[in-house]
């Protein structure tokens, strides 16, 4: 009751023109006196709430519509596909009805962890660059939102993998990412080796060709020298200098063809 009167008092003091209104109110009951303020509050709070919830929903759906940072996680899909494989597919034999063996699942989980490691590395290396770009205003908020979402997903994904690993053997979760990291290193090593190995054939071929040309050049040189000697002898002149200049030929030819070969 006090509230109601206070309210009307307030009304009164601020605005004198409501005299008539005030005289009508005492006739109304207690509940009807509260009706107006409650209605006011409900409308206010309700509209605020709907606005905020709508806004948030819209923001969330906008964020969800953004393209994910990474393509779909293939190894995760394979692992889960194996986990949910239809047991009847193995055949009608009762023994074969058993689900996928643990070792296959372990391998699949390890492959999944390797993929995670690659993604973590990618996130880690691109983070400082991205932050820098954002500070300068070179990239939009969308990109940052996508990145943050990817980070969040990654965290959950790692937790999930650790849990799965611990389900196979206690404490495997603590070392599975170490193993995965080594596997990743191993893959990189293999790639680099393959890249360099691929040069071997071309290098060999190049060298064989080069050797052949050097040899033929050298032989030609010898022949020419002989011929010259003969002609010089015929001419009766003995010009050693000319021969010396010619002898410098193969080395120069070598130096010249070096760039051609590469």
């Amino acid at each position, binding site marked *: 009751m006090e509230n109601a009167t206070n309210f009307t008092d307030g009304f009164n003091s601020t605005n004198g023109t409501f005299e008539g209104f005030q005289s009508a109110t005492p006739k109304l009951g207690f509940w009807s006196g509260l009706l107006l303020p409650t209605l006011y509050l409900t409308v206010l709070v309700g509209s605020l709430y709907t606005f905020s919830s709508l806004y948030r929903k819209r923001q969330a759906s906008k964020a969800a519509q953004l393209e994910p940072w990474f393509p779909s996680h293939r190894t995760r899909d394979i692992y889960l596909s194996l986990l949910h494989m239809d047991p009847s597919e193995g055949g009608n034999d009762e023994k074969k009805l058993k689900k996928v063996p643990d070792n296959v699942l372990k391998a699949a989980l390890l492959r999944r962890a390797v993929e995670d490691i690659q993604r973590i590395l990618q996130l880690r290396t691109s983070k400082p660059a991205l932050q820098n770009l954002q500070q300068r205003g070179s990239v939009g908020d969308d990109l940052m939102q996508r990145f943050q979402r990817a980070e969040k997903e990654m965290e959950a994904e790692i937790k999930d993998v650790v849990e799965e690993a611990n389900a196979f053997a206690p404490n495997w979760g603590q070392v599975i990412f*170490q193993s995965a990291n080594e596997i990743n290193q191993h893959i990189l090593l293999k790639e680099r080796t393959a890249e360099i190995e691929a040069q071997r054939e071309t290098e060999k071929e190049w060298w*064989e060709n080069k050797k052949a040309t050097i040899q033929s050049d050298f032989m030609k040189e010898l022949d020419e020298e002989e011929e010259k000697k003969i002609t010089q002898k015929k001419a009766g002149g003995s010009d050693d200098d000319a021969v010396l200049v010619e002898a410098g030929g193969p080395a120069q030819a070598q130096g010249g063809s070096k760039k051609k070969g590469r």
Partner: protein
Amino acid sequence: MDGVPDVFHQYPLHLDASTKAVSAASLASDVALQNELKELNTLHRQIIALETPQQMVPPPTPVNPKRSAQITKMQETAAAASKKGNYKEAIGLYDFAIKMAQERPPWEASGLAREELSGLYGARAQNFMALQQWADGAVDAELALEMKKVGNTKAWMRRAQCLREMGRKEEALECVRFGLDYERPGPDKAGVAELETYLKELEK
């Protein structure tokens, strides 16, 4: 599960009843998937070969010493053959040792594999050089360097020599200079001195 989709794409996978190999015959055109499954099956076989309790994948260290011992033994035999002048035999042995080192289970410490492979490639490069197969020597030396760039003066030297023998003096110079950049702060003073003198020789 904040923000993570609780859904996944189910692949129509098939598990072979006897070999336990996973395949997806209906998605033969998806090359990436097929490669991934191949990797998965290889890893699976490596896990089956494990002798640990419950066939659990062990942490990267300590490494099972069996393979290292075998590789060392083969390396010694190869070095002995090389000393006798049987370079071809030595190269064959090194080939084998390299293969063994490459087939190490991938979860084992990669630093060890790098170390071993670097030594093996370096030694094979030397044997190729003895046979005057400069192209092979250069590639092997490069591989040795790829595995281990610092503390590998011999490999830098070998690569430079091979390049020079093939008449690629500029590349040889570049190689020696790079090598010196890597090696100068290192402890191998004799190797650095050797590289320095070779550099001077090349710069003439």
